[in-house]
């Protein structure tokens, strides 16, 4: 099985993904598996997956600016896009969970020791279901960059974490959405762990004047492509 695994190193689908071991990101050194990954045949065990109905999501869960009495500080933004499979088919009624730092670059988390202010009006967590076209929409605050201890003077580019289920166990994806033109990209080993430049660009949202609402909020578009239940177009070309 190990040999079959190495045959697939050149699979374009895998090429888009970061490796487990990326030494510049120090935490991978003791957490990346070293033994070859086994092949898992496609069966009901991975072509099925959990579904979360409308009961799982509250009406205001996709608006991170309205979870408290007052409005959070920072630049109000709208983040929207489509979730599709590798054929461009919409992924419907699928749960998206997001979390992020506040506008000062601080998370509400006991382990975040960055000396930047917490915002009593911002928790930084939201969720929603995609609609029949696979679209989702969040209203939030543009997160700030923040320092971390990976290397000397290390800063994460501003980003929003997204967790998606798609339609099957094999569609599961956790990723990060970045903002266009961030000068920290070239210094960030997590962003750089995706070695293919085109694939890296797919993690950067685009400013979208159509989504932008006058006198109210800037709009960013971020489309997401998940593995489908079954074969992907690229797998067919093998």
């Amino acid at each position, binding site marked *: 099985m190990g040999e079959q695994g190495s045959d697939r190193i050149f699979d374009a689908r895998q090429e888009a*993904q*970061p490796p487990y071991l990326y030494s510049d990101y120090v935490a991978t050194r*003791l957490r990346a598996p070293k033994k070859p990954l086994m092949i898992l045949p496609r069966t009901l065990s991975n072509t099925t997956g959990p579904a979360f109905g409308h009961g799982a999501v509250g009406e205001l869960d996709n608006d991170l600016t309205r979870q408290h009495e007052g409005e959070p500080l920072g630049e109000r933004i709208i983040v929207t896009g489509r979730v599709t499979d590798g054929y461009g088919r919409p992924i419907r009624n699928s749960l998206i969970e997001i979390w992020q730092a506040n506008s000062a670059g601080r998370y509400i988390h006991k382990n975040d020791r960055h000396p930047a202010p917490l915002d009593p009006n911002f928790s930084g967590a939201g969720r929603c279901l995609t609609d029949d076209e696979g679209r989702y929409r969040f209203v939030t605050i543009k997160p700030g960059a923040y320092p971390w201890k990976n290397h000397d003077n290390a800063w994460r580019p501003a980003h929003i974490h997204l967790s998606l289920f798609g339609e099957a166990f094999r569609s599961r994806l956790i990723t990060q959405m970045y903002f266009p033109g961030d000068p920290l990209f070239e210094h960030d080993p997590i962003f750089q762990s995706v070695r293919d430049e085109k694939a890296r660009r797919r993690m950067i949202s685009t400013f979208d004047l159509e989504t932008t609402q006058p006198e109210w909020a800037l709009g960013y578009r971020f489309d997401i492509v998940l593995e489908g239940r079954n074969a992907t177009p690229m797998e067919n070309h093998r």
Partner: protein
Amino acid sequence: MTPEPTPSQTVGPFFHDALLGEDRSELVPPHHPRAMRIEGTVYDGAGDPVPDAMVEIWQANEAGRYTDPTDDRENPLHDPETFSGFGRSGTDAGGRFSFLTVKPGPVPGHEGTLQAPHIMVSVFARGLLKHLVTRIYFPDERESNARDPVLSSIEDPEFRTTLVADDEGGVLRFDVHLQGDNQTAFFEL
């Protein structure tokens, strides 16, 4: 143009409020007559527990049926309102996670084979740029484990054993070793 997949990025250290705000670690209520506890610890390559990991499980019901519309076989289906087949647990300061569930039935494999009862597992953590996928098999299923197409595809018996839980007096223990000599067997995504 064919849409290309979105790359994976690490879950990072700060996901707890967003992903673990609701407790999804109990797939059945504690009074369920066949409720079974599965516990384990996630270890890194130095043998230290990983206190900031998240483990998700996905499994069939006791009849071997997935709560998913594409599993349209006629096996009896639990009410999807009461058994979703999905669970999520964070790890605590000692790297420990825990689920309360029922043992799934056997499910079909590829090309007419039958798979031994098993639970699909995803592991997320800071330092994992992509999540890891593994499986929990059951120690009381020696014969069906021996015939299982996925288990038997692993040639090294010690490596294969990393996928079989240990029965510790009614509680099943399934530790996850991310790296090292006793590394758990993981599958390609």
